[in-house]
């Protein structure tokens, strides 16, 4: 979306793609209004069903291609939860799998030109990060009671350093949801915005547009990688937080 300003400069509106709009007509966005968020999240759910339910309908011992992908996703997240959170973390595997699958599909769907990237919004990533943070903290206190606080009391350190470390640990603990959410949202938003900037250049450069177009191709490939890696990072951090809740004693 490039439009020439009154001043003659190039005004590339990189943020327009992130607008939340009602699907039908114009007007205010109420909490219940079906918006483009609804649409793309719905498509993500549809993709989930297609891959993990329709794809595995055969229950074949020798899997079809789609079933292979579904099994790969299952095995990937299952192993991650087992390795990072430990065997007792496997009880929470469906939650982490749900988060991972949603983020993966939201990220990849956002790469379709003209699509709306739901995970590029702080409201979405922040809600998920807060849910993880609150869930993990509550779980820690339920499982270990007050001894969950030993997570912040690092017995490996010299006694004199421990209070200072405890303060740092507490701060870092409460910063977790912030970094957890902004990492994903920032990656998604930045990638899409950069592509939009290059697209804007291509619009005004005429024949020279070859360079921005090549750059868009390169960035698109990078974004493809980022889309997966960020979902992976979100899921593995969730596993790490879960491990801290299950085994708070260092």
């Amino acid at each position, binding site marked *: 979306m490039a439009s020439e300003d009154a001043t003659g400069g190039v005004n590339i509106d990189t943020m327009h793609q992130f607008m939340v709009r009602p699907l039908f007509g114009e007007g205010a966005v109420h909490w219940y209004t079906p918006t483009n968020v609804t649409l793309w999240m719905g498509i*993500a759910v549809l993709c989930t069903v297609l891959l993990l339910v329709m794809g595995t309908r055969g229950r*074949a011992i020798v899997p079809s291609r789609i079933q292979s992908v579904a099994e790969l996703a299952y095995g990937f997240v299952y192993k991650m939860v087992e390795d990072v959170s430990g065997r007792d973390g496997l009880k929470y595997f469906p939650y982490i799998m749900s988060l991972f699958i949603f983020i993966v599909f939201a990220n990849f769907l956002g790469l379709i030109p003209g699509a709306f990237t739901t995970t590029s919004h702080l409201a979405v990533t922040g809600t998920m990060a807060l849910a993880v943070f609150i869930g993990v903290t509550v779980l820690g206190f339920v499982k270990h009671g007050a001894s969950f606080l030993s997570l912040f009391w690092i017995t490996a350190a010299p006694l004199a350093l421990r209070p200072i470390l405890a303060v740092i640990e507490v701060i870092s603990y409460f910063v977790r949801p912030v970094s957890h959410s902004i990492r994903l949202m920032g990656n998604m*938003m930045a990638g899409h915005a950069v592509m939009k900037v290059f697209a804007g250049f291509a619009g005004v450069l005429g024949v020279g547009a070859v360079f921005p177009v090549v750059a868009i191709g390169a960035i698109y490939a990078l974004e493809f990688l980022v889309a997966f890696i960020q979902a992976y990072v979100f899921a593995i951090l969730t596993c790490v937080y879960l491990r801290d809740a299950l085994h708070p004693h260092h």
Partner: protein
Amino acid sequence: MATELETAAAAGHAAEAVGMPQLDFSTYPNQIFWLVVTLFAIYFVLSRIALPRIGAVLAERQGTISNDIAAAEELKLRAQEAERAYEKALADARAEAQRIVAETKAEIKADLDAATAKADAEIAARSAEAEKQIAEIRAGALESVSEVARATTADVIAAMGFRAESGAVDAAVDGKLKG
């Protein structure tokens, strides 16, 4: 065209008016509501249908694979057993053959021994008989000699013109023959 650009620009300015759409808090309830709905839907689909199914398929496959491996292991064991049985049968057959050979050898030897013994006995009997005959013949010969000597003596005496008593001649001849 111009109006289109203008509306686009206007939309852009409208967007700029609120800054980053990510920080437009008026859309937060909407996004959070739909996110919660979406996550519940995905969680429901995953926990009720997809994950148990995939887990079951993976477990079944694992089971099939380990079953196949176990079956292969068992077949291998059976093959080894069969080989052992074959080797045992072979060894048994060899032993049996050897036993038969030895038995036959012993039998033949016994037969042979019996035959030899019988032959030896026969030979002994025959030689004893022969010896007896020889002795008889010898005895016969001696007798003849004395008879001839007596007769000759009697004849010689008679020819010389004497009359000899037969008893005296016999005694004289016997005495000479023995002497």
